[in-house]
């Protein structure tokens, strides 16, 4: 077997190892993300409160817009 063939085989094996490791990491990340998603769903009541108080958000938008307009016109 030539040196080049050896090098080629070595690299292929290395890539395969890295790909397996990457797959494992992706799977771990996916699991953590899913745990976070389940935790967020457990707190669904908190988000329902936000829906109920949505009109308060329009007041916040108005305040922010007034500030941005003042900034825009330098007053």
């Amino acid at each position, binding site marked *: 077997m030539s040196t080049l063939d050896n090098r080629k085989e070595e690299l292929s094996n290395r890539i395969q190892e890295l790909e397996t490791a990457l797959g494992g990491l992706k799977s771990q990340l996916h699991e953590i*993300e899913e745990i976070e998603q389940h935790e*967020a*769903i457990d707190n*669904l009541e908190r988000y*329902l409160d936000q829906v109920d108080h*949505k009109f308060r*958000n329009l007041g916040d938008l108005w305040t922010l817009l007034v500030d941005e307009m003042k900034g825009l016109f330098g007053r």
Partner: protein
Amino acid sequence: MQWLSIVALVYMLLVAVSVIGGGFKLAAGEQARSLFEFASNPIAGLVIGTVATALIQSSSTVTSIIVGLVAGGLPVTIAIPMVMGANIGTTITNTIVSLGHLKEGEEFRRAFAAATIHDFFNVVSVLIFLPLEVAFGVLDRIGGFLANLMLGGDSMSMKGLNFVKPLVKPSVEIFEQTLGGFGSTAGGVSMIAIGIVLIFVSITVIGKLLKILMVGRAKQILHAAIGHGPVTGIGTGTAITVLVQSSSTTTSLIVPLVGTGVFSLRQIYPFTLGANIGTCITGLLAATAITGANAVLALQIALIHLLYNVIGVVVIYGTPILRELPVMAAEKLAEATIRNRLYAAAYIVSVFFLIPSVIVLGSRLFGI
């Protein structure tokens, strides 16, 4: 006790839809078409549906009113753009909810995109299906065929199975006898006004009660959907919307979930589409209460609403290029809004109020 209240409120909703139909019939008589002549332009109908829903903040209320009006003689062809507009108008609620993240830069970008993806999907849907409907009347025909199949009186008819109508009829007759005494116009208009108020109150209170009662079940469904594909996402969005009887509640719930970065925009996209389908249940329920010759037409418009949303999801989400359009538009707008918050205000005012007003004024001025 809360379940009993819900049953009573559903009954009130069904009576109210029939009362609107009866009132419209009484006030307009054979003139129903000419009364809605201003909305015979499909763009005007679309705008009416959009603005009415954005103001009332409930597509279920608007579609139930439309079902009642169709039962009273409003032509289905005029009602179709209105239900399409209701789909657009209802998206204002989750956009307002996303403003709760306004002070958090990246969080607001994600939340705003999660809210507006629903808007853009519904706009794309109207851009595709409204011209097709005007040209070929496909939804009108399929809805008519299905409604006739279900109520048309042949062997496959479900007419005999409908137990809602006999339950609703006595209450509707009380309204007709009481208010009909004021004359056809005054009595009819009073019935329409009372019907609208009753629908609004019943749907709002039902929504509030169901939110409390169904939150546990909604959690179970959401937990079960995690890690599954888009079809499960669509099914989950549909199921939760049916449970809480409000698409805006469903689509608003996912806004903070995306805002905090726990879910991605693409993960919740199918879920918002399910909300479009689930919200049709109220219109279908409303249609079961209609009696008389126009019952088929009331069912037809409710079925058209369902067909429009199902076909919209299949065509737009099923076509890769079309599927990406709402995602790209929502992301671009959210990025622009991060640079300047004025875009958020400009977007809400223009999409839900300014552009519709300009379109209506333009069409009136130029007689289109």
